[in-house]
């Protein structure tokens, strides 16, 4: 009963906290709200007209939504790379970063789920998927696995920080015996959400571009580069705008993780390119389309080459200790890496899977305005959720939000 009361008070205090802030904060939230509203309006058009309002067709049947979903699963899982050293190796430096990382995971997972719903032809019929009242095709369909692991991961990532925050809120020290098992579970789970999401594509014999044993491992490597890269940028912003102390060493340690992951990712990229182009087979044709275009159809070319150049430059810069230690350079490089992997693991992965089609038809995909604004709206929603979580979390950590202080 007492816990409930504390929780209720935390929600109340948290609400006060997130509705008060500096002018910059209010402007930021207003902009996000506006983008979300535009996104919702666009989604209403899509609901009315059907998915024909998007650029998807029978030839390329998954587009921007599923691309962003795939990428964000990676971002969500990357939080675990910070959780592990902080809680298990008792590395103090990471502690502050972890709360932020887990908040990021929650926001990314919410975005993932909304992206999947936005992609559905019949969102009103989604109850068909709820076990017990619907039919849940488990374990045959990898999509049902994905539903399970994503929701499970969301649950873990909400409960652990919630427990820690509620304890801090009351001025108590969280008991490691309670949360460490959860942390271990989330570590395995993070790898799970990656692999399951990769298997979603990897298991399709119809699409040789995805039906590739490296897909899962490369997913892990690229996500562990992109996720912590995003965390570094977010930490830099938080450091600038709040009183939350994040020492340089924390950011530098995270940059080590980014560096190693980016290097491994690059090795795997080389391995993939070698396999596709040293002895090209019929199955390399999608890769040819992606990197060089086919029959004058070259829509993805500027994107993928931007991605590869950013990736290579960022990885080289990160590799040099001197350059990496300069925080300003580090932030720029992290931004480059994030964009590079968003392209590569987003539509650079999903769209070529459909081109050429099963009978060799080359039909390209261009997202429509409706699709783009729904996508932006969902990203704004993610940023909105994260801002709320981070602001409350930081206030609790700083001791500004304490149980019964005000009443």
């Amino acid at each position, binding site marked *: 009963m007492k816990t409930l009361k504390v929780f209720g008070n935390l929600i109340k205090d948290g609400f006060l906290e997130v509705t008060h802030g500096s002018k910059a904060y209010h402007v930021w939230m207003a902009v996000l709200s506006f983008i979300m509203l535009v996104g919702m309006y666009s989604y209403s058009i899509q609901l009315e007209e059907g998915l024909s309002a998007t650029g998807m*067709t029978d030839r390329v049947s998954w587009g921007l939504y599923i691309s962003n979903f795939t990428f964000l699963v990676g971002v969500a899982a990357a939080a675990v790379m910070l959780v592990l050293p902080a809680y298990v190796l008792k590395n103090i430096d990471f502690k502050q970063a972890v709360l932020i990382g887990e908040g990021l995971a929650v926001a990314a997972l919410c975005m993932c789920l909304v992206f*999947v719903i936005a992609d559905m*032809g019949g969102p009103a019929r989604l109850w068909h*998927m709820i076990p*017990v009242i619907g039919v849940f*095709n488990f374990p045959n*369909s990898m999509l049902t696995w994905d539903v399970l692991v994503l929701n499970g991961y969301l649950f873990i990532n909400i409960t652990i920080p919630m427990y820690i925050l509620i304890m801090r809120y009351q001025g108590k020290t969280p008991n490691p015996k309670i949360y460490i098992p959860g942390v271990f579970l989330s570590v395995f789970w993070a790898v799970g959400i990656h692999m399951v999401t990769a298997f979603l594509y990897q298991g399709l014999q*119809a699409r040789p571009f995805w039906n590739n044993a490296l897909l899962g491992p490369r997913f892990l490597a690229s996500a562990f580069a992109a996720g912590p890269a995003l965390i570094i940028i977010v930490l830099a912003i938080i450091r600038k705008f709040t009183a939350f102390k994040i020492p340089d060493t924390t950011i530098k340690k995270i940059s080590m993780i980014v560096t190693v992951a980016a290097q491994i990712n690059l090795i795997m990229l080389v391995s993939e390119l070698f396999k596709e182009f040293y002895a090209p087979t019929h199955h390399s044709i999608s890769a040819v389309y992606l990197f060089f275009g086919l029959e004058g159809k070259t829509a993805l070319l500027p994107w993928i080459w931007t991605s590869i150049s950013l990736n290579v430059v960022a990885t080289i810069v990160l590799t040099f200790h001197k350059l990496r230690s300069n925080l300003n350079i580090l932030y720029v490089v992290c931004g480059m890496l994030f964009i590079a992997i968003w392209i590569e693991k987003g539509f650079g992965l999903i769209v070529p899977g459909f081109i050429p089609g099963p009978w*060799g038809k080359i039909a390209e995909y261009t997202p429509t305005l409706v699709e783009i604004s729904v996508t932006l709206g969902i990203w704004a929603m993610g940023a909105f959720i994260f801002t709320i979580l981070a602001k409350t979390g930081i206030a609790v950590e700083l001791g500004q939000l304490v149980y019964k202080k005000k009443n």
Partner: protein
Amino acid sequence: MNNDNKKWYSLNLKKSPKVDSCGCGNDSGSCSGEKTKDGYDQVMNVSMGRRAAFKKITAGFLIGAGAVSSSCSVVSGDENKEKSGIEWEEYFKGNYKLMTDKEKEETVNRLTRSYELRTGEKINMTSKDAEKDVLFGYAFNISKCQGYMDCVNACVEENNQDRATEMQYIRIHEMEDGKGFNFEESDDNYYHEVPAEGHFYMGTQCFHCDNPPCVEVCPVQATWKEKDGIVVIDYDWCVGCRYCMAACPYDGRRFNWKTPEVPEQEVNKKQHYLGNRLRKKGVMEKCTFCIQRSREGQNPACVEACPTGARTFGNLLDPKSNIRWILENKKVFRLKEDLGTEPKFWYYMD
């Protein structure tokens, strides 16, 4: 499908043969009706009860909403009340595959009545189950096809496909002589007189694989293989995720990107629940070997319409059928056999 009565060479990629395609535990005829309950069934039967509970709870939530506004309104007549009642029942019905015969009949009656309320016209819809000892197969004679596309037109008319986007289940590929089966360089969207000189033609559609990848990936079991080998979709159960479309190596599936339009006078009123009944936006559809015809002992519309006799359809389990004669006497082959999907659609040449 037992390996004993399999009448074609197979890759044998799977470790264990799949004994039962539909998982309902009933080996003969239909997927419903009287049968011994296995574990799966028991779970599903419970779920029917729970869904009823869900329906009631949701009803509580929606009491202030549209359903009530139409049923309480003084202006709206009995017909509107009936219409919203039908919509309500239809929204909460279960997966066709798991319905009892009575439930199947009820939903067919509701759909028929709903069409009558909307248009004033009567349709004739059935839910006929697969016949015993029937397994449908299809053969395509590449030497005979001239690319007239009569099959495509007949298919569209028979199966009530969306006219606005010109949805077609069949694709006819125009190939160049001397290049073999080169799908990359073939043209499946030609608008000129046929047969074009120096070309030959080849049709593809859903191959009704014996080991269909599309069925495996569906998260809600809205698509499955019937006892007679036809891969069907429950249009009302599909959630529109399009995973099956990504999983199909043969481009056999189509999606309703918008509300399909069929002019009232062109609607084929002889319909089957799993076949050519009218679809809605946001669901998958595909060739069903014209289930509304083939289960009545007729040939699919494409076979009937073909002016050259390139298309043969029949029962693979009937030793006297034409399809069996072709499989036994012609050098038949299937497309992308290396994927282990085991299509029930063969090609051959004279």
